[in-house]
């Protein structure tokens, strides 16, 4: 089981759109996928038409009084399940603070699902918190959407430095440019130069496209409702890059014969 987390300290950079589309693409390829919407805003949960409610709330899950297994909902797509958001997730930091070894908590909650899923996506809320530390501990790969500005590149440096300073497990970082506005010269320059200079920046960039915004109207991944759109093609390229870098083995073929 490989764990990917979409993470950035900033909000509104395309974390949820990435998690939703990449998890859909992974499931379509034959992987058994779980997406955990850790953000109390419940955007990923909304996009899959699931109600943002977990019995016992975030506290029940983190403390282990409620089973993760019972909270999982199937999406309308084969092999893609969702662990929904809940409004109580806004207090996850407090719950984690009270837990033993808070940094390892998410990882140990996911461990029993190893036999059931090949891929897990964690859609994280913005910010730096105990929850994000726990995500960094659990994830194999951090997918970091970046708006092509000088400031966001600085943020990536800070994150890289932080991960390098972690003891024990350290996730791989794969940043990629997101919400690129081709009309902006700075966006164009940074998004073209940086991938050539830095190995941790993906070659694929996700442009700012109205089709991606349409997801909230369609309540489905753009890769599902408009699979041939430019947006869907970019996400497919990004997933191919992320999958290859993570070393995820081939899914079991659906048509073995």
């Amino acid at each position: 089981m490989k764990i990917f987390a979409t993470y950035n300290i900033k909000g509104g950079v395309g974390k949820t759109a990435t998690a939703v589309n990449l998890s859909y693409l992974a499931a379509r390829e034959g992987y058994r996928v779980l997406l955990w919407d850790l953000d109390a805003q419940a955007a990923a949960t909304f996009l899959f038409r699931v109600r943002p409610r977990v019995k016992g709330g975030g506290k029940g899950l983190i403390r282990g009084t409620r089973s993760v297994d019972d909270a999982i909902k199937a999406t309308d797509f084969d092999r893609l399940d969702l662990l929904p958001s809940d409004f109580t997730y806004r207090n996850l930091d407090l719950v984690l603070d009270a837990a033993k070894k808070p940094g390892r908590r998410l990882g140990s909650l996911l461990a029993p699902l190893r036999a059931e899923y090949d891929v897990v996506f964690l859609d994280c809320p913005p910010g730096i918190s105990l929850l994000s530390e726990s995500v960094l501990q659990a994830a194999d790969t951090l997918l970091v959407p970046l708006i092509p500005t000088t400031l966001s590149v600085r943020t990536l440096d800070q994150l890289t430095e932080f991960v390098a300073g972690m003891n024990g497990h350290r996730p791989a970082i794969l940043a990629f440019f997101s919400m690129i506005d081709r009309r902006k010269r700075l966006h164009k320059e940074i998004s073209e130069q940086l991938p050539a200079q830095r190995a941790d920046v993906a070659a694929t960039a996700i442009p700012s496209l109205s089709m991606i915004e349409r997801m909230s109207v369609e309540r489905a991944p753009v890769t599902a409702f408009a699979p041939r759109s430019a947006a869907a093609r970019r996400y497919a390229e990004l997933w191919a890059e992320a999958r290859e870098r993570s070393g995820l083995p081939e899914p079991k073929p659906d048509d073995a014969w």
Partner: protein
Amino acid sequence: MQNVLRQFVLNGEDASLPDQVLKLPGSAFAVSEPSRSVTLRRLWLDTFDWRLYRSGLTLEQVSRGGSADLVLTGRDGQVIAADHPVPPPAGGRKDGARRSRPAWPGLLDTLPLGPLRDHLGPVVGVRALLPVARAVSVVREIRVLNSDDKTIARVTADRMSVTHPEAASVPPRLAVSALRGYQAQALRVADLLAAEPGVAEAGQSGLEAVLAAAGRRPGDYTGKVDVRLAPRMPASVAMVTVLTALFDTLLANVNGTVRDIDTEFLHDLRVAVRRTRSALKLAGDVLPGDMAARFRPEFKWLGDLTTPTRDLDVYLLGYADMAAGLVAATAEELQPFHDHLVRSRALAQRDLARGLRSARFSRLGREWRQALASVGAAGGGPRPAARHTVARLAASRIGRAHRRVIRDGSAITATSPPESLHELRKRCKELRYLLEFFGSLYDPGQHWQAVRELKALQDCLGEFQDTQVQHEEIQVFAAQMMEQRAAPAATLLAMGEIAAGLAVRQQKARSEFAGRFRDFASPAGQNRIRALTGAAAA
């Protein structure tokens, strides 16, 4: 692959009923348009003796276009394991070579290693999986949606046509599956469907419905003596009933033995022959004229015909354990012995198949069937026993066989030759067979207890004799291999270690005999046999 929550059958005459029902009229749930029809080819697999069915399991291969899934479900329809079976690459085949579908019948090692094989292993054992039914399904599906337009359940309508064992049609079936996390809502959908006119709860599984339509009953073969006798039945009629059932079992196993599908066909065939021979020996006097005397040599011929292959099967079935138990030698050193066994078995099997296809075997079958049929008309033989009831016959013959076991066993001491134990084993088998022939006359609990005590003694005697036979055979094999220059010194040494192991096992069985016999021959045990047969005879 979906976990089915509830299944229904549509009983109405109206062919458009499935489409009407799929609209869930009058429900608060919205439904999607029915999907386009998909044609599935279904193939159900089980062992010849229905081991999966008897364990509450169903193994189904569902093919669609070029792909197929093997799905194992439990009694409640829940999926236990599933796989896309791909046979392991044969010699010289490289990864990426064209994958082909496993051919049925096939042994479990046809399937790739994985959870499905792990689940099937303990149930299926050495038996092959055979197609028990085939059907073609035309399936349509609707999704049931909640107020967020989220799918909460799927309902499939399945129109099945049976193609094997016979062409037949079955009423359309509906299946409701819940999406994970939406069980309660899906159950409400199932309740709504159940209330629709023309919709009834499916009392049978898909396989049971298919077999029923084709006039077959799952679990219709058992290697056990499956007869129901009434205590007051004339002895001759009862013996014909038993012998007919044994002959049916024998014939049921001929095809699988000739085709060498798995080793149990031959095993069951041999047991049917041995039981027949014992029945003729111990109660053949109730049959008319010289019927028993006429057929006993023919059944002996048949029994002898099957012995070489079975002996080699026993060796090969126990080979892995024997090789694993080697201490001084290695499994590699023993390998030429395995090759020799496999070659010898191929030759023995060829002779066996030839024998079962011979004119002599056909004649035996034909004449035996005629002879059995003629008894009903002619009545029993002239001897007094023929006019007894079966309960009386059973009491006298079981009593006699039991007394012989007690007498012969009591005479065995620590210095008795091995032959005395072999003879006792035969007497025990005769007693066991009589208990099986007449088992339906008795209280099941008492019967089970009597057989259990006898079985413990038989196991000990069986181990003693089997190890001796194998010990003698391995010496013959060694001589054959040396003659054929197929025996490296290391292999002979390894075979020597196997022979020593067999001798140790034989000694152990010998040392356990006295205790086992004491348990069997206890006054309580003897009383149980008397009480068992006495009650029915009275």
